[in-house]
């Protein structure tokens, strides 16, 4: 198991560097010029060249990449020759082309919003989705099942940007039932934190919950038809115990796997949800970075997102390996 863990971790680290390399490559392929964006309309070619030099995008691709990777481990200096040198402490992701802020600082500032959104929404959709799925499975073919199925179909076909605007308009702007979505640190005020995140949580959870309800239902129905469940019932085990201890347990494994992956992806930034509700998290940051051709920020957000997705995969793999020894042997 330890050997497997080391092997998978090493693969994850290599994957992260590949992601950075590919992102660098993609950025270089974009025909637009970040220096031009930082320069006014009267900007001369010479000034643009100076800006490119300051941004270090006039260097060969490999030099830029190696400098960046080096900066992850040792301090890096910008504008060394001028009276205004800038130190970027390791792990250095560089300075934003547009705001001049240290990318690591920006990520640290934005991450709590994304974490709050991801954790709160995922808890709601996990609990809600599993409960609905269970009810639906246990009442198969009944009205409750049909209602839950319709609910799942309806919400899974909606998009955040549509439902988000609608609920904002009616619950926040028109009727003031829910406070304007905003992030307040839970260390500052738990109630304000929860109130500010309520609408994004509910909106995101409603859409995602639908899928989980359907998955749980399918898993439960499959497990309930297994021989061992029937045997357990025939041996006199109570219905509730069979349903929760055996059937749900059997159905929950793939749910947890998908939950891990979804949560990992969400931790990397919920672009649409954050944009719709004006939350300043990693998702909106990555959008701004792409829009403004802000390479250091693009790289920073990509690494941030990739880290959580890769970590989620790693954890899921570990869990699988722990639960199923065949996985260890096969891999």
């Amino acid at each position, binding site marked *: 198991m330890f050997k497997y863990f080391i092997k998978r971790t090493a693969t994850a680290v290599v994957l992260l560097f590949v992601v950075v390399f590919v992102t660098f490559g993609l950025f270089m392929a*974009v025909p637009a010029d970040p220096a031009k964006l930082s320069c006014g*309309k009267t900007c001369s070619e010479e*000034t643009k060249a100076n800006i490119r030099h*300051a941004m270090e995008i006039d260097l060969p691709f490999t030099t830029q990449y190696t400098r960046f990777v080096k900066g992850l481990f040792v301090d890096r200096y910008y504008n060394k*020759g*001028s009276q205004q040198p800038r130190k970027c402490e390791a792990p250095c992701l560089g300075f934003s082309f547009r705001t*001049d802020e240290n990318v690591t600082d920006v990520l640290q500032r934005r991450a709590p919003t994304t974490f709050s959104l991801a954790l709160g929404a995922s808890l709601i959709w996990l609990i809600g989705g599993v409960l609905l799925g269970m009810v639906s499975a246990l009442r198969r073919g009944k009205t409750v099942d049909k209602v839950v199925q319709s609910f799942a179909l309806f919400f899974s076909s909606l998009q955040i940007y549509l439902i988000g605007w609608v609920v904002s308009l009616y619950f926040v702007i*028109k009727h003031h039932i829910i406070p304007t979505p905003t992030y307040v640190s839970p260390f500052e005020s738990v109630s304000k934190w929860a109130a500010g995140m309520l609408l994004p949580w509910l909106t995101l959870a409603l859409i995602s919950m639908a899928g989980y309800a359907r998955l749980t239902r399918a898993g439960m129905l499959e497990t309930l038809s297994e021989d061992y469940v029937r045997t357990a019932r025939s041996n006199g085990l109570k219905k509730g115990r069979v349903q929760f201890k055996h059937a749900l347990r059997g159905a929950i494994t793939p749910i947890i796997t998908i939950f891990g992956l979804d949560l990992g992806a969400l931790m990397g930034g919920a672009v649409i949800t954050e944009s719709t509700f004006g939350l300043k998290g990693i998702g909106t940051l990555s959008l701004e970075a792409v829009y403004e051709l802000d390479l250091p920020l693009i790289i920073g957000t990509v690494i941030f997102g990739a880290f959580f997705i890769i970590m989620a995969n790693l954890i899921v793999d570990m869990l699988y390996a722990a639960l199923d020894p065949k996985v260890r042997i096969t891999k």
Partner: protein
Amino acid sequence: MKRTRTAIVAVLALGTASLIMTSVAPVANAAGGLAINAKAVGPAPALAGTVKGGTVNYTGKSDVNHLDPSRCYDTFCMNIGRLLWRTLTAIQLDGKGKQTLVGDIASDVGTPSNGGKTWTFKLRSGIKWQDGQPVTCADLKYGIGRTWDQDADSVVLTGGTSYPQATIENTAGFKGPYATPTKDLSGVSCGTSGSVETITFKLLTAAGDFNFQTTMPNYAAVRKDKDTGVNYDNQVFSYGPYQIQSRIKKDKTILVRNTYWDAKTDPIRVAAPDKIDMLLGQDSVNTNNLYIEDTGRAVNGIANGPLTQNVPLIYDSEMDALQPLFEKRGYYGKNPYVTWLAINVQKVTDLNLRKAIQCALNVEGMRATVGGKSAGDFTSSLAPEGIAGYSKSTVCSTSPKGDVAKAKEYMAKVKTNKEVTFVYSNATKDAENEALSLQSSLTKAGIKIKIKPIDSTEYYTILEQQGADAPDLMLYAWGYDWPNASTIYPPLFRSDLVGTDVVGENKSRVTDKTLDAMMTKAAAETNPAKANAAWVAVEKYIVNTIAAVVPMYQDKTLLWRGSNVGAQYNPIANSNDWASVYIKNPKL
């Protein structure tokens, strides 16, 4: 300054969220161009009903690019930034649409000598930094000098205009205070006239409207001991009516009063609210809805320029329905941007073909595809109404629908009817409809026209590239940096912009020495009336003589403000004016 086609859409998109204030155009003086008042003093003219106090909100998607005056080159930062810093001269608004050039840090509007190659300004006394120290000529010179950092090998202060470098003498190889701290900016010197401080500029060439150029943020003071280089953006040391209380870029900015600011020294800023509260990074549609409902932060809020790129365009029918709402709060009127069709004269070489295009173009049809009358008012000039260089000339037809018969007359004289290509960005369906409309109108006159969509990420690169793939026809829009033709025609038609690979803003690829000479002469003219006549001649030469463009319409802006806010439109900022905004009931 350039207005992207996307931005045009964005401005129009404000429609659902916008209201009409008095539709204003700059009021030209007798000589043409803007009024000038060499003796303006504070306090600044306030809007009727102005009361002091309260907090004015801004809720929007975008943040200012920079608050550092040396780096500021967009209308948003110019509008907000001047609450923190002041420029040598500035444009005063009187609340009735009149713009006047006045001294800001200067107490006059400058005195030219040496045929317009030397300018001297007297400095106003009593202007203080936020720590109570007086603003001196040395502070102003230091602030101006920071612009030269762009010339340093390793730029610290990216952004900002480069007008000073192109205008002011620099014989000592000065490259800003960071790269060359021991060198002096030779073209700027401080002196005294009696008890008054003066600042004198030696220019590379004569500039008749240099005192307009000094309205740009580059001509603001920065105190050397407070200069934190790249971090100054968040730590601007103020000598305006407000100072920064807190700022997180793209998130939140709060400005509070600078207690050392004295209204009697300031003919520009009313500064009625006690506080400016900016909440940034907000969703555009939700913000729009806030303004439509006039609720929450929007009640005490003003929009700053385009709120959104996501709200659909407003078309004529919708504008009519929204009109009553618009009249209560907001602005719906012309802005300083003009949209035109640029004709690449290096590829469309036949003058008769260019004239035929001018005549055949159905501007009304094209405008209808991008919003109709809310998109803009038809014009025949590249300069917006009211500034030097604007003329009510006729391009070909007095009808915006074009004159097909006349176009056919020109086509009969065309030697080779080669196919011309119009390029457009594939970013929106409206752009495609606009292209189809253009194709339809030109085809009616027998012009062979191909329309070509360009990926939006490459669009502006393609517009300025040379070679076989250079476009023949393209739409473009432009607004002045300061209200004079010197920031319209030269930046767009100077022959030195056209290189072998790129053409910069000279989309028509005009390399005409006669035109260059006309523009140089007009720019050097210090007499406003003569300067105006010279710029009108330039305009007519471009439009009528060489037929390099087809002026189409002067764009319109739609802006929000909350019901508890009084504001006026600022044409230069193309936005609500932050300097004169007030809260009607500060207790709300």
